[in-house]
């Protein structure tokens, strides 16, 4: 059988047609049908789904296979129906047929049937399977019971209320302790040699039932607490125990009142006979915010033990947990260094890579030397993505231990010459860039290394980046002309892209060159074969002749650069507005000086090295996500005509929760400030499974008289869906206005059994008011020269507050969010629990500055207190910043 043609669509069509004709034939050939189904499954699971009408046709022809009782065929039919359930219409058609298998005597039919049933049922038919599911959950056979429990997870989105009806059966199953009958374990890996004792597959239902119970109650913290207390000590399945630890960990994080008992519970699992359970316990302890060193210590020792496990998965999990903890608390992990050291020669390269990055974090000035020499050998035989991880870790070393810059540079230069793919080379080059930017002693040598590298760099775009960088950094070194030769060589030897970059880079040396040789070299490129290269050379040469030296310098070495993201956004806005009478207004695009840019980069780098781990394992970082939501919000805003007419958004607040998270309607608010207006945004989510809301609008009453400009209401809000309402006002003179809000709508119930929509009635729902605060008038901004700015700014105000937060870290986060300021120089990272100084900077909507220095102190007797000092040009605003906690 060949699937090769899957990509070009040919095989898809053949399989489709073969299925249709074979399944509608009479009589049916079960073997052939089964083979065809497996091909079909391959196609739908690896490629795009079939279009809806084709899926529906396939689905109906598959239903014809129910006439055959061959168990192997039936199994495949179930798999195929599950796969097509979301793409075909009228899948409900198979309900009765499946019900027959699900209630029949054959165990193999039964569990497959139940799983499939749960995928095709909808809100109108869920009622008809209630009895079946309840009975199956408490069935003696664990396969049946598990199928019903796992199937119920899929029913939750259909109707949470309905699934809750079998809470009692689920609860009974948690404690029923059904071991898997030996007959069903045949063919599985011998369970005891797998290391879980008889535990892994046995008592599986317990795990499934506990998970379902959690899903049923997860919105209710009290109920969750009850689950934890009720089942603690009664669970046999290791998975179930792991779940229990996770529940406890979640409750602990959300409710400081239960910290003690939950910590005790988690700790009780630390020496569990099953390694997976004890691992989870250790991870949960490390995840406790503000855990004391005494609390953390046993968890670290337990991970240390696991580092020596003979199973690679556990060594991996242990080193990963240690590595993550070392990011914030290197000193706590140091004690394991000897064991981690041993892991560098671990047969698993993944474990070894993590071992190295952990040691780079926990190491001290002395141990780093030794480590670096070890890594060099190690680097030769790991795949590229691990090399990148190691480079990222090394990258921060030079900043941390400036005295090691020589070693770091040599290490980087060495591996730059070694084999590796483009992402690896890029990581190394970026690391060298950092050395140039942040470690002045290393600058000259690092630049030379880059010059060497471009001599035989196989990636043109990387070469272009380096050339640009040489142009930016080279002229300010002691011997700038040294770099000119390297750059000019590229013009002689490379392709057009690289030559163009080299010409621009050369141009940057014009100002420092007193000999005139740079000019001569540039003139030679005027007859280059590429337009781009000639144009660039001509422009630079022409500009250099302008008598006003200020203009020349501004062009060649601009002090300010535009923020490219903002520039792009503004240009797009300008082009879509199509009003070309007015020239594009550059003053609205924020600019950065080189120092600011570097400060930002340093911070980004510190963040990056912190989250290396997450990036690999979990994809996008939190910061990226935040960025994403921010741009999603502004796109949504711009899509609305009335709002577009208000002009540019000067500031958008962070999200404000206007309801509890567990209510029937959950509302999140945002405040958008425009030059003359303010727009309130309400994201409403209807969590009711069987109610449609129509004509949803917000009645907003401001605390001072303001003109309401317009309301963008929601015509309809379906069950379990979300929508957005906007309300616009003129911008108030007073800074602090609160907006009382009531949602109004027509509520219509849907009959769950027929799907009919009932008569509506008018209803309203009061939510928390949105309040404008000082943070709404500030835009977080970087400042590379904070201390200088601080000295320059005239007006000062100060205030002291006792905060109701458990730790300084919480206080810092709260302040950053409330004031909407940017933490400067990594001061948002709290290193000592007892005292901390946060420096923050922001721009006002008018472009002025606000600088804040906040000194936090934490004492057992008085909790967290903060002394806030603010400086700025605007006297009133500076004063108001200090009143933020009032």
């Amino acid at each position, binding site marked *: 059988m060949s699937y090769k043609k899957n990509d070009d669509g040919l095989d898809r069509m053949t399989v489709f047609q073969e299925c249709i004709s074979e399944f*509608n034939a*009479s*009589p049916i050939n079960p073997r052939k049908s089964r083979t065809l189904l497996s091909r079909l499954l391959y196609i739908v699971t690896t490629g795009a789904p079939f279009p809806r009408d084709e899926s529906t046709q396939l689905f*109906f022809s598959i*239903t014809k296979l*129910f*006439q055959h009782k061959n168990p192997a065929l039936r199994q495949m039919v179930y798999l195929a129906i599950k796969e097509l359930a979301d793409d075909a219409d*009228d899948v*409900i*058609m*198979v*309900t*009765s*047929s499946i*019900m*027959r298998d699900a209630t029949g005597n054959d165990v193999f039919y039964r569990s497959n049937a139940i799983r499939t049933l749960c995928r095709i049922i909808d809100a109108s*038919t869920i009622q*008809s399977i209630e009895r079946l599911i309840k009975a199956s959950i408490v069935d003696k056979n664990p396969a049946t019971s598990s199928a019903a429990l796992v199937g119920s997870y899929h029913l939750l989105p259909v109707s949470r209320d309905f699934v809750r009806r079998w809470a009692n059966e689920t609860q009974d199953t948690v404690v029923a302790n059904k071991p898997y009958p030996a007959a069903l374990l045949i063919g599985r890996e011998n369970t005891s040699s797998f290391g879980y004792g008889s535990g892994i597959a046995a008592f599986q239902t317990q795990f499934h039932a506990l998970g379902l119970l959690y899903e049923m109650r997860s919105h209710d913290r009290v109920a969750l607490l009850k689950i934890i207390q009720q089942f603690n000590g009664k669970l046999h399945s290791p998975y179930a125990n792991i779940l229990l630890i996770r529940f406890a960990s979640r409750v602990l994080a959300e409710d400081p009142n239960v910290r003690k008992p939950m910590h005790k519970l988690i700790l009780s699992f630390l020496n569990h006979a099953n390694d997976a359970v004890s691992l989870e316990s250790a991870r949960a302890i490390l995840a406790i915010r503000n855990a004391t060193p005494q609390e953390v210590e046993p968890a670290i020792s337990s991970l240390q033990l696991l580092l020596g496990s003979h199973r690679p998965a556990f060594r991996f999990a242990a080193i990963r947990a240690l590595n993550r903890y070392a990011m914030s608390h290197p000193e706590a992990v140091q004690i394991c260094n000897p064991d981690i050291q041993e892991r560098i020669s671990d047969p698993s390269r993944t474990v070894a890579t993590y071992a190295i990055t952990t040691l780079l974090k926990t190491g001290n000035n002395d141990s780093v030397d030794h480590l670096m020499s070890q890594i060099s050998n190690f680097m030769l035989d790991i795949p590229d993505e691990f090399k990148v991880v190691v480079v990222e870790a090394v990258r921060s070393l030079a900043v941390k231990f400036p005295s090691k810059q020589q070693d770091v540079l040599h290490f980087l230069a060495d591996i730059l010459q070694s084999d590796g793919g483009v992402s690896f080379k890029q990581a190394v080059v970026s690391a060298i860039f950092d050395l140039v930017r942040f470690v002045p002693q290393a600058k000259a040598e690092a630049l030379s290394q880059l010059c060497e590298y471009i001599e035989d760099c196989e990636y043109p775009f990387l070469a272009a980046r380096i050339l640009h960088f040489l142009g930016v950094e080279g002229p300010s070194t002691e011997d700038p002309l040294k770099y000119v030769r390297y750059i000019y060589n590229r013009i002689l030897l490379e392709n057009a892209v690289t030559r163009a970059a080299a010409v621009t880079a050369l141009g940057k040396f014009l100002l420092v060159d007193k000999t005139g040789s740079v000019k001569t070299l540039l003139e030679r490129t005027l007859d280059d074969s590429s337009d781009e290269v000639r144009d660039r050379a001509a422009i630079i040469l022409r500009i250099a002749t302008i008598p006003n030296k200020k203009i020349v310098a501004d062009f060649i070495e601009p002090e300010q650069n535009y923020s490219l993201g903002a520039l792009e956004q503004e240009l797009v806005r300008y082009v879509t507005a199509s009003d070309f009478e007015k020239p594009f207004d550059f003053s609205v695009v924020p600019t950065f000086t080189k120092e600011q840019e570097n400060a930002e980069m340093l911070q980004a780098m510190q963040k990056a090295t912190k989250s290396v781990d997450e990036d690999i394992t979990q994809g996008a970082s939190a910061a990226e996500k935040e960025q994403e939501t921010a741009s999603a919000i502004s796109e949504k805003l711009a899509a609305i005509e009335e709002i577009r007419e208000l002009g540019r958004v000067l500031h958008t607040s962070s999200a404000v929760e206007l309801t509890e998270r567990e209510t029937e309607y959950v509302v999140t608010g945002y405040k958008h400030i425009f030059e003359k207006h303010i727009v309130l945004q309400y994201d409403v989510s209807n969590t009711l499974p069987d109610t449609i809301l129509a004509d949803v609008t917000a009645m907003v009453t401001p605390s001072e008289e303001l003109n309401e400009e317009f309301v963008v209401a929601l015509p309809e809000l379906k069950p379990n869906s979300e929508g957005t309402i906007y309300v616009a006002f003129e911008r108030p003179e007073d800074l602090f206005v609160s907006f009382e809000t009531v949602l109004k709508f027509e509520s219509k119930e849907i009959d769950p059994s027929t799907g009919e929509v009932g008569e509506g009635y008018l209803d309203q729902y009061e939510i928390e008011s949105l309040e404008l605060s000082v943070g709404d008038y500030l835009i977080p901004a970087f400042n590379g020269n904070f201390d200088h700015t601080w000295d320059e700014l005239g007006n000062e105000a100060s205030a002291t507050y006792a905060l109701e937060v458990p730790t300084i870290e919480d206080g810092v986060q709260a302040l950053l969010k409330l004031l909407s300021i940017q933490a400067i120089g990594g001061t948002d990272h709290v290193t000592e629990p007892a005292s901390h100084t946060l420096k923050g900077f922001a721009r006002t909507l008018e472009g002025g500055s606000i600088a804040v220095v906040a000194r936090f102190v934490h004492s057992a007797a008085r909790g967290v207190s903060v002394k806030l000092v603010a400086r700025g040009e605007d006297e009133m605003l500076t004063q108001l910043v200090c009143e933020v906690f009032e």
Partner: protein
Amino acid sequence: MSIWRRLYNWLVSLLWSSETNVVVIGLQNAGKSTLLASLQGSDFSPDTIPTVGFAVQTIVKNKVTIKCWDLGGQPRFRSLWERYCRGADAIVFVVDSADSDLLPTVKSELHALCSQESLEHIPLLVVANKQDLQPHATTVDEMIEKLDLLSIRERDIVCYAVSAKTLQNLDSVIEWLVARAHHT
């Protein structure tokens, strides 16, 4: 048994065994599922669950295997009847004779189905079910008239008075079905 004997038996079975595909439709509560159960020899049960979608039942009678596609009669399934009738050897349309109020609906559904091009020439058996519920049950003659069965042409069509409860006339139904079978 010698291998030759077995081979002989197999050849004979090939010659004589036959299969037929029958689709059973009709409004909800007409007694389709009950009728099929009775044909299979199960006991009559007064509480049944409505059929959601379809279920396949097999009846074996003297070497003839009758595959019955028992379809749900609720309005939302009616548009899907045609899909399953396509290519069938026979259509059995079950009517609740005790509920004369529904006959106009029955009539329009039946005629709509018969006018489908894809179902041309497929033999049709109209079962006037629940004859045991006297004295209100509609008779066969009344049924032919009220459903205007005479206007349906170009296909075999018969109407039997049946009771799935008392088993009245079930043998005629079986006979009719067996006669539609084709040898495989």
